[in-house]
């Protein structure tokens, strides 16, 4: 009857493993954020400092800004760190968000192959998009309603064009920023990214990346990140106090200095600008 004994031991081990993992400490703040803050490693770098300073554990799930806002709307998270100012303001107007605090920025850039097949280098953002469209060069879009995608759609509109949704040369990946850059690299196409994620990509390629920055510097390309606290009317049970502490901490001197010191390849990925 050895088999039976072994069998029972196995079942016992399985039950032991299956016992509830222990309820998380109440001082845990759940945040929804964008792929760029996570993929660059910024949050991995900030979270331990935040815990040391405040005793609050930070947990986060990284998705596009669109879904992050939705998770705040349904109160499944306590706080948001996102980058789509027009959508954020609307969000507060609709009564889902309470306060919005700008904490840091970087900028969006158009990157493309070194040989620049459509010759957009140095053009204004509007002209560059027009040129890409005229030459039907491959343009790789996130296509996921993330902050970056919202901005990109706005730029097509600003340039006086309809979104080339169904065009052959317009590729919508539906994936995160770094995946999308990798698609652009494989296809030899152009894409729009935040500079932080681009530097991360560059550092992965050992500083010699096949895609280079071709268009940047326009005021419209500013990429502002903000902490959004949720409305206590809409989400009565969310951890509002902890969320406010996080918002204060992110805008405080310590965190702002940490953000300033966060570098890859000696380059700054995000520039702190809390007021």
């Amino acid at each position: 009857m050895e088999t039976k004994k072994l069998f029972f031991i196995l079942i016992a081990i399985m039950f032991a493993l299956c016992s509830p993992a222990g309820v998380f400490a109440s001082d845990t703040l759940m945040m929804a954020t964008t792929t760029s803050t996570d993929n660059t490693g910024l949050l991995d770098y900030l979270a331990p400092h935040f815990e040391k300073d405040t005793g609050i554990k930070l947990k986060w799930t990284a998705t596009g800004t669109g879904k992050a806002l939705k998770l705040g709307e349904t109160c499944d998270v306590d706080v948001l760190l996102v980058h789509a100012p027009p959508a954020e303001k609307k969000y507060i107007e609709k009564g889902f968000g309470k306060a919005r605090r700008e904490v840091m920025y970087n900028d969006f850039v158009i990157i493309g192959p070194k040989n620049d097949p459509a010759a957009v280098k140095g053009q204004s953002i509007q002209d560059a998009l027009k040129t890409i469209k005229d030459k039907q060069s491959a343009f790789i879009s996130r296509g996921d309603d993330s902050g970056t995608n919202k901005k990109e759609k706005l730029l097509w509109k600003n340039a006086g064009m309809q979104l080339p949704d169904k065009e052959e040369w317009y590729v919508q990946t539906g994936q995160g920023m770094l995946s999308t850059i990798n698609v652009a690299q494989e296809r030899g196409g152009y894409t729009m990214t935040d500079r932080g994620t681009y530097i991360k990509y560059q550092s992965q390629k050992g500083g010699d990346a096949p895609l280079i920055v071709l268009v940047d510097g326009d005021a419209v390309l500013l990429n502002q990140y903000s902490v959004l606290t949720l409305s206590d009317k809409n989400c009565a049970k969310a951890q509002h106090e902890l969320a406010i502490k996080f918002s204060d901490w992110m805008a405080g001197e310590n965190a702002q200095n940490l953000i300033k010191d966060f570098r890859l390849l000696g380059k700054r990925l995000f520039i702190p600008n809390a007021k």
Partner: protein
Amino acid sequence: MDDIVAGIVKAFELLFSGDESTWTAVLATVKVSTCSMLLSIGAGLPCGFLLGYYEFRGKQHLRTVLDTMLALPTVFIGLVVFAFISNQGPLGDFKLLFSLTGIAIGQTILAFPIVTAITATTIEAVDPLFKLTLVSLGAGKRNIIATCLWEVRYGILAGAVTAYGRVLTEVGISMMVGGNIKWHTRTVTTAIALETGKGEFANGIALGIILITLAFAVNLSLSLLRRQ
């Protein structure tokens, strides 16, 4: 090609250097898949037995429904579970979103039809003469059922192993319901998706190798159990 070689090297590094984030992900995977297997076997075995042992009206239709459920896509299960356990869903008060328990619920839904269908099939395949013999030997009903189950134990084990393979390797449910939260709900598969998203392909391949090793360990211990 470089990524693949680097991935293999990295897999050993991660496993043997005791890299904390890797081991937490491995532990989360083992925990959550064990839970969902226990639940799905607990529910699927009796259901499969009833379905295979007894004849009743509508049995064929029920089998068709069950067989269709074998094709449930994991992202769809993830989405439905998400809708139920999100704060605005009917089970929102239990705070199951972004927890391992939430993932286990989804994976149970994934594994249950597999366990049930394979159990039913193996029970159906038991020789009717076997039952007759048992009756003629004077066995009671409870005895007959127990003996039948014992007779088909390897078939049921095969079902469990198949279900385990699906549960262990799915990413849709874990990602959507668990949220891929570091130190908490990050499983090996969502970690692979993340590393790929970060462009760290070697890390992704390393984690893939670790996952296969895990599956191998489980199947090896099961086959040892079988040989006893």
